[in-house]
């Protein structure tokens, strides 16, 4: 393993680059509604996103990272030839990175998750033979790509329906909003904490047990809700704004749960998407440093830290521009809708992250928005864009696969 250091450095650089790209682009989805409705400023959004993306990556990103690292390819087949697995993972990282760069250049809606999963499957199936891929696991991942938007859509529909029933459809929607919004804050805080405690931080060696986790999640949810209540209490009734649009102050009250949800979204995104960048890095590092293929070793925390740092770097250098652009175009996602869509998407993503399934955060959010649309909550959704987004993964998976296989062959020729 004379090349061990080279491999580790290469993997770290590629991984950092991909994490940078994720931070620069994808994070905007979580923060844009809050910025668009002027609940927070762009610099506040960047700081919030940085904190929660980082926390999500480090606290809850382990499971998905493990899946990408060793859930897709059968490591046993590489036991005699660990170099090949390293080359394959490097090829996957590079191909996903190139594909994403090409796609964003042409403006295609491409999911990072789909690129990296396609790439790993591609190099294994074409480079080592079809039996090198754990097809049952890949089947599960593909199923989760269908299930996650559906689940998020259903949750968003239900949440928006409850908002209609409890707040918007009432005689005095403002009083109802002031009464119920702290509970919506609680719901977001409780659920995110619970899933993280139960599923996410297990890989850090922390296991609190079910009842302690529930109690702690409820406590954290209550604390967040109380803070939310203080902010809600400070929002004044604005007669001038309400004369034209009677729900102006109601929506202002909903900015509080929406901002909490934006934090949850950033956390969920960190927990799921950081794995796309650092999963292959984790594989390369564990093989290169020990010289053999471990099937069981845990992901070293420093790799998750690397991913988190990459995302924060992307946010800091480029993210504010993207957030500003998306924020202007997303004004239809008013705080009440932004809350429902964000909470549904974040809940689905964190749940999937807990089970180790890498899903597309963008697709999940689109599913949630469609759910609200079906509840008659959004004025106009462009179905043509919806279909391009969903069709994109049919293209992305084979494209990532072919590119990774090609790079794998090149890499193998180089070290032989």
């Amino acid at each position, binding site marked *: 393993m004379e090349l061990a250091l080279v491999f580790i450095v290469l993997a770290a650089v590629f991984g950092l680059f991909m994490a940078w*790209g*994720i931070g620069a*682009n*994808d994070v*905007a*989805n979580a923060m*844009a509604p809050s910025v668009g409705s002027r609940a927070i400023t762009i610099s506040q959004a960047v700081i919030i996103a940085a904190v929660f993306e980082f926390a999500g990556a480090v606290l809850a990103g382990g499971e998905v990272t493990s899946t990408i690292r060793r859930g897709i390819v059968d490591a046993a087949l590489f036991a005699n030839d660990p170099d090949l697995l390293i080359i394959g993972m490097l090829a996957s990282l590079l191909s996903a990175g190139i594909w*994403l760069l090409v*796609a*964003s250049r042409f403006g295609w*809606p*491409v*999911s*990072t998750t789909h690129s990296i999963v396609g790439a790993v499957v591609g190099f294994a199936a074409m480079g080592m033979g079809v039996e090198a891929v754990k097809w049952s696991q890949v089947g599960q991942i593909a199923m989760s790509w269908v299930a996650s938007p559906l689940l998020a859509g259903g949750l968003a529909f239900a949440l*928006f329906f409850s908002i*209609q*029933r409890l707040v*918007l*459809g*009432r*005689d005095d*929607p403002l009083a109802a909003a002031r009464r119920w919004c702290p509970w919506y804050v609680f719901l977001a805080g409780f659920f995110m904490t619970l899933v993280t405690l139960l599923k996410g931080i297990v890989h850090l060696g922390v296991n609190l047990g079910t009842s302690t986790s529930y109690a702690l999640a409820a406590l954290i949810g209550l604390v967040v809700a109380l803070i939310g209540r203080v902010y809600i209490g400070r929002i004044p009734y604005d007669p001038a704004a309400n004369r034209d*649009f*009677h*729900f102006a102050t109601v*929506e202002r009250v909903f900015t509080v749960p929406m901002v909490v949800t934006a934090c949850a979204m950033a956390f969920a995104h960190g927990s799921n998407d950081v794995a796309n960048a650092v999963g292959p890095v984790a594989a390369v590092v564990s093989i290169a440093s020990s010289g053999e293929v471990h099937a069981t070793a845990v992901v070293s925390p420093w790799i998750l830290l690397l991913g988190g740092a990459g995302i924060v770097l992307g946010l800091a250098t480029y993210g504010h521009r*993207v957030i500003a*652009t*998306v924020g*202007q*175009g*997303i*004004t*239809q*996602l*008013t705080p*009440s809708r932004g809350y429902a869509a964000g909470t549904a998407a974040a809940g689905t993503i964190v749940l999937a992250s807990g089970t180790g399934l890498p899903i597309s955060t*963008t697709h999940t*959010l*689109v599913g949630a*928005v*469609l759910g609200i*649309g*079906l*509840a*008659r*909550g*959004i*004025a*106009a*959704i*462009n*179905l*043509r*864009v*919806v279909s*391009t*987004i969903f069709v*994109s993964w049919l293209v992305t998976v084979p494209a990532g696969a072919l590119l990774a296989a090609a790079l794998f062959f090149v890499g193998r020729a180089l070290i032989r």
Partner: protein
Amino acid sequence: MASDYISRLFGASPVRPIQEHFAQATACAMVLEPFFDAAIAGDWQRAVEARERIIELEHAADDAKRKLRLALPNSLLMPVNRSDLLELLSMQDAIANQAKDISGLVTGRRMRIPDSLGKPYQEFLRCCLRAVVQAERSVGELDELFETGFRGKEVDVVMAMTEELDRIENESDELQVDLRSRLFQIERQLPPVDVMFLYQIIDWTGELGDLAHRVGSRLHLLISK
């Protein structure tokens, strides 16, 4: 890296444009009041000025209508039926057209409204315009309806507004019947062609109230998609 796809996901909301269109069409119809004040007084210079103002506002409404239609492609998922929305738009537009036609006919023929009919006609016109204003107020609730997702209290509010619209329209029907019978009583003393066109003007004015009423019915259909 699909970030800006999330923002492209949202089509432009048709709510504000449709409200602005109706505001323009209503403003156009409202000019009929000063127009007839001038025409009945025989001040044709002022009447022609008012007529020009009507044409101007009608063109503005037309432009707004065209723009809105282009912004409503088939591929939009909306909480309301697209064809109902387009139907609502064309009725709003018909109100502006109607105002243009009425003022056009009166100016073109330099029509004289008999003294005994002047006051009742103005009362009738004001009632029809009240219906138009009430319809505009109902359409003004469209943003609140979209906000609530067409559920709950807001639906009742709009229903009450359209009921009021029904009431105003009934009143204008009664005034129309009364006006016709007044004209009938004096029609033999007037040149027959003038009488024919006076009936025409009464009909067309009543049509304004009808159109406003139909805007209200469309709003009902939108709500109960």
